[in-house]
């Protein structure tokens, strides 16, 4: 199968992107300045991310759609206000995670943002679970552009007036050059920012306007270091079909109201795990010194017993040191527990730590 290109492909090329194939798309891994500079620019200024490879699934329906979706997602969708968003998961019967997603209540239905690698199968699963009752569009005609970092609100508001009034995890429709644009205040970098859904034919022109206002394109490489410093999970690494939301330490995303009532896919396992605990759990890990522990690095306790595995590890440019996440046996998951990471045959000391690694200070940065 040929790899797909997003509507910003030409712009990426013009901006000297290095490309990588990701989930069937040609995506920019970095531009000429490199991952560290791109990362810091996002933290201090404003970075633009082409996330058009992600799925934008529109499902249209009324009250019965809300009921049906509540049987799928562990969310209190009845009380989700118009244009408000929630982070959630599509789960299997045994609460394994098929995908993590953002669901937003829109007029006449819901918009669900899905991971690129999962979107086609999510669509099929949801269509089956909803018995083909509702109009569902996995919209390939729309691009998704994220703008993240402390200067993003100023920059985006100079292009689309009114976005500054959006609260975190809420959105609205705006009109620009006669195009309908859906903007949410959200993102996946640990920074204030927005995600902008707009028609493909306007994506290039719109993004160039953000660049003219001082924002810069940022590749998937820095997106990964940013989300890891922010302690956020990446599907295929921290999250997979063999992990449940409780094991992934994401129980905050499960509605308490819904836990009491159950009756959603995977609720039996979720309830059991919330009551009895889990054997393995996701934690933050801070290696000592500069050693980088990549995915699949084995984790040992102080008596040399294997207790888990790293799921993501890199160098955090804002932390100025290595950072990692992984799963360890529950009894070793307490903060400040000393552990060892086996890198190139040698065991290196590290510590279990709280997440995120990087917390916004809200002090205006200067480049």
């Amino acid at each position, binding site marked *: 199968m040929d790899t797909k290109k997003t509507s910003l492909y030409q712009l990426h090329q013009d901006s000297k992107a290095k490309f990588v194939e990701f989930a069937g798309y040609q995506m920019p*891994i970095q531009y000429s300045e*490199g*991952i*560290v500079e791109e990362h810091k620019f996002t933290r201090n200024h404003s970075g633009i991310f082409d996330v058009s490879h992600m799925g934008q699934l529109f499902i249209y329906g009324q009250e019965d759609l809300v009921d049906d979706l509540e049987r799928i997602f562990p969310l209190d969708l009845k009380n989700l206000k118009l244009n408000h968003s929630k982070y959630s998961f599509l789960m299997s019967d045994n609460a394994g995670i098929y995908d993590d997603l953002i669901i937003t209540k829109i007029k006449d239905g819901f918009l669900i943002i899905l991971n690129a690698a999962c979107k086609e199968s999510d669509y099929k699963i949801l269509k089956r679970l909803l018995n083909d009752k509702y109009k569902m569009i996995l919209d390939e005609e729309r691009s998704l552009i994220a703008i993240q970092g402390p200067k993003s609100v100023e920059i985006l508001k100079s292009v689309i007036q009114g976005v500054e009034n959006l609260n975190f995890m809420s959105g609205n429709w705006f009109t620009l050059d006669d195009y309908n644009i859906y903007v949410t205040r959200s993102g996946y970098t640990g920074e204030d920012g927005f995600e902008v859904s707009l028609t493909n034919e306007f994506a290039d022109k719109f993004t160039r306007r953000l660049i003219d206002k001082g924002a810069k394109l940022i590749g998937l490489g820095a997106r990964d*270091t940013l989300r890891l410093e922010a302690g956020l999970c990446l599907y295929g690494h921290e999250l997979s079909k063999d992990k449940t939301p409780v094991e992934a330490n994401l129980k905050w995303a499960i509605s308490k109201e819904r836990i009491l009532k159950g009756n959603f896919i995977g609720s039996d396992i979720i309830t059991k795990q919330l009551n009895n605990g889990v054997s393995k759990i996701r934690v933050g890990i801070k290696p000592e010194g*500069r050693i*980088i522990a*990549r995915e699949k690095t084995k984790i040992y306790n102080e008596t040399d017993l294997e207790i888990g595995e790293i799921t993501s590890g890199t*160098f955090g440019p804002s932390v100025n040191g290595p950072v990692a996440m992984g799963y360890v046996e529950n009894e070793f998951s307490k903060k400040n527990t000393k552990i060892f990471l086996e890198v190139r045959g040698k065991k290196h000391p590290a510590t279990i730590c709280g997440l995120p690694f990087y917390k916004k200070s809200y002090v205006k940065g200067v480049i």
Partner: protein
Amino acid sequence: MSEVKFSKEHEWIKLDGDIATIGITKHATEMLGDIVFAELPEKGSNVEKDGTAGVVESTKAASDVYTPVSGEVVDLNQSIVDDPSKINQDPESSAWFFKLKIKDKSEMDTLMNKAEYDKFAKESSA
């Protein structure tokens, strides 16, 4: 002062008497991206031609550093361990990796000169 030679693993080597200074090429740093970690061989250890003699890691991945000739490690550049970004800034000069007391100077003959390496690097990244 002899000419600088290059290996297919993207190391450069400069010989001064029987002391060889070794580092990684600018081309290698461009392929790797931002280097955030460097590990060097032990001082006093003996390394064999084409054997591993260190590690560099970028934000993306880890790569072994090989030695293009055999010899005893006589000096290390600690400054690149303390600040690996120096490798991106000045790879072919101040950001050298280690110095060897070379065992067999004829090993230098198997390596490429600048023109040969530039052609090799261009072809291998195409």
